[in-house]
């Protein structure tokens, strides 16, 4: 019988992920060396690219913003015992929602009305796109994983269709909508900081960052301080106990998926309202799937997800910088590193736990035993 290993909470939260990350880096270093580069130099450049300049930091944070949203989306569903693979599609729909509202009302409404409306629309569209598979599982027994995967394809196809037909800007060769009115564009961080008198380079980083931080805090409060969050976690851990406690499984599934989808939809705010200012295809670019890894590595806790999103943002940004700096260094190497991190910190997250537990026991036992 494989008894779950009991580690002190601080080790479980801090030491174990660090050890896993170290393993992943070691492994990646070996591969880098094998290909003929200098691991130390590569790592140095990666870190410098991600955090070495204001622009680098901004890009890192911009990527991280998207990952926070999709990571939280995965976590909220996961706490309800559901595996939401549909972050990609829900993010696309979120962008579509924000875009449609912007195209429809952008010319008539001022920014203070327009921007909240776009956030709302992004949330609603993402929510709907996740709620349908949720309802299918709750009432019809179809599996959430399959349904959400399929909904990814439908969302992508729907966006392509709309961009190719109804929303296409006349005279423009590429399948894109026209640019939004100024009131429908979320201010970039450089603009916001300029109001405060701080000079900052122009990057895609925008005010969605604050939204992401608020979302992380909100998810924490909702899951651990609110009654619906209590029901959600009870259901995720022990469906039988939840039923015994009078919770209604179908509603919990639906609510959990709806909240998850709304969070994924926020990606649309970051990308469409914050960066591109128009609807275009492929703006999600796999962030929905990366969210699964972020949720996994962040242990489905908002604080962990913020850290994991930063890590992934840094890898994204540092990786592009690397490809720039070292000739012949392919960006694929960075994807490999990402893969290794997912492998070590996600899939094999508990592999090091027994060893750590043994080490901890050796260290802690001589000093006054253990209780229980």
């Amino acid at each position, binding site marked *: 019988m494989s008894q779950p290993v009991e580690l002190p909470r601080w080790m479980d939260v801090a030491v174990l992920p660090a050890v896993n990350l170290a393993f992943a880096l070691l492994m990646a270093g070996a591969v880098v060396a094998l290909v003929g580069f200098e691991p130390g130099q590569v790592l140095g450049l990666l870190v410098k690219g991600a955090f070495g300049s204001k622009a680098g930091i901004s890009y890192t944070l911009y990527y991280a913003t998207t990952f926070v949203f999709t990571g939280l989306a995965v976590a909220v569903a996961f706490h309800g015992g559901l595996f939401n693979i549909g972050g990609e599609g829900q993010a696309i729909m979120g962008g579509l929602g924000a875009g449609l509202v912007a195209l429809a009302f952008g010319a008539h409404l001022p920014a203070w009305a327009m921007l909240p409306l776009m956030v709302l629309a992004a949330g609603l569209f993402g929510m709907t796109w996740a709620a349908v598979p949720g309802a299918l599982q709750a009432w019809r027994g179809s599996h959430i994983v399959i349904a959400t995967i399929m909904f990814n394809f439908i969302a992508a196809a729907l966006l392509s269709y709309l961009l190719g037909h109804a929303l296409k800007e006349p005279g423009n060769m590429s399948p894109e909508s026209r640019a939004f009115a100024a009131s429908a564009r979320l201010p970039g961080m450089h603009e916001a900081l300029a109001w405060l008198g701080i000079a900052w380079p122009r990057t895609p980083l925008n005010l969605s960052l604050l939204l992401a931080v608020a979302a992380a805090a909100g998810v924490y409060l909702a899951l651990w*301080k*609110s*009654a*619906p969050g*209590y*029901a959600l*976690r*009870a259901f995720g*851990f*022990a469906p*039988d*106990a*939840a*039923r*015994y*406690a*009078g919770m209604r499984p179908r509603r919990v599934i639906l609510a959990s998926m709806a909240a998850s989808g709304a969070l994924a939809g926020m990606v649309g705010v970051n990308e469409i309202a914050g960066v591109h200012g128009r609807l275009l295809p492929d703006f999600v670019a796999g962030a929905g799937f990366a969210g699964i890894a972020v949720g996994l590595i962040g242990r489905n806790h908002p604080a962990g997800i913020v850290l994991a999103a930063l890590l992934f943002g840094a890898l994204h940004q540092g990786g592009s910088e690397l490809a720039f700096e070292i000739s012949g260094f392919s960006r694929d190497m960075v994807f490999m590193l990402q893969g290794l991190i997912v492998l070590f910190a996600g899939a094999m997250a508990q592999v090091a736990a027994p060893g750590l537990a043994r080490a901890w026991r050796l260290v802690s036992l001589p000093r006054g035993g253990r209780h*229980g």
Partner: protein
Amino acid sequence: MASAVRPAAVAMRHIHKRFGAVHANRDVALTVCAGTVHGIVGENGAGKSTLMSILYGHYRADGGEIEIEGRPATIRSSRDAIALGIGMVHQHFMLVDTLSALDNAMLGAEPHWRLRPARREMRERLDALMRDTGMNVDLDALVADLPVGERQRLEILKALARGARILILDEPTAVLTPRETAALFATLSSLRERGTTILLITHKLKEIMTLCDAVTVMRGGQVVLDRAIADTSLDGLAEAMVGRRVDGGRGDTPDAVPGDVLLQASGLGWTDALGVARLADVSLALRAGEIVGVAGVSGNGQSELLDVLAGLLVPTTGRMQVGARHFTPAHWIDPRQARDLRIAHVPEDRQRRGLVLPFDAWESAVLGYQRQPRYNRAGWMRQRAMRDDCAAMMERYDVRPRDPFLRSSRFSGGNQQKLVLAREAVREPLVLLAGQPTRGVDVGAVRFIHGRLRALRDAGGAVMVVSSERDEILALSDRVIVMNAGRIAGELPIAQCSEHALGRLMGGAGHARPRTR
């Protein structure tokens, strides 16, 4: 029969097995003559399943020796057991619903690596067996489409096709209709004619009397009776199974003064997905100031009754009235309504239902009551109130350690149970439904829990206790309902509850108060 010269099919001697503090088998000896049907009876926890699991290789004994057909045997796994000619038909069938009967019989013992010749050979083998034994199974049907009796025959055929000469059947009639039972017995008799040795685990004494050649009675991990059927009687077996009445700490508790009916149910029935009636025609009334014990060997409908009353299971037939509220299967009570009507429920499975194991104790301590205004302000949890209440419950119910922040899974079984009971009892419910309230709980905690249940009764609550522990039923109840095969086999005031009467009713040996047939 030449059984006199054949060595014993099974001889087990000095078998010991411990699970932690529980001595499940204590110096057990079992000798089964070849070509006979040997019954093994005992109450839940008597050790009969453990003994059979040792014989079939699921467990290894801590000590003792086993001989199969005269030769010493070491049985490390069920694979060893099968190689020795031992087959087992589990109470819960080990069949794959989506495969045909033929493929199921073959699974794991394919006579050829290619499926087509393997199927051909297996079909021949099974056809021959069916001709010999008179058993009949549609080999091409999917198992999902087979009725229960036929599935069981398939299990028997499966074991025989693997060369079983010794067949263990674990509670084979628990899921069968009377007609299927008769057919099974005919089959088993014909197998005996062929020389197969059969070990029959059951708690139904009548079956033992009609079918077996010899019987071994177990109680508390030990063999208490071992003799030929000709030398026993139904009453003798019942008494041996139950033993002398132990004082369950009833002491001089005053007699109950039953008051108003708080919950009345009639004609409750529930049929499971396989079409087996697990609950049939159950009517009962729970009165204020009374503890009703529901006795019976587990698996005879008590769990279903508990779930139906608590709103976790919607019955197929019946009615229920709680106060002024009426419920029918179309609009059955749900757990939330039940709590609103002050029906509390201590579930049988505290680990799966009663607690959320990864939750902190304080979170588990409000499970089911999280919507109460005391704990809920506009959707936000009032965690301070929850923690304070949890601490108070721990104090009053002596839950150790008294740490509301400890994970629910880290408490011992007894303390988990005390926490669940505290949560359900602390609001002084009108009706408390308690399932196995002291299962796996140490002696001190048992007395404590019993005391609390009595206090609840004395405060005017109606308490229903479902327990497979006879001592518990006798110690607590004012009135005892005995269940057998999903029905109420009899109902007795505690004064008329002799061990003997209970044993007979539990074994389905008679109806103290005949009900509709």
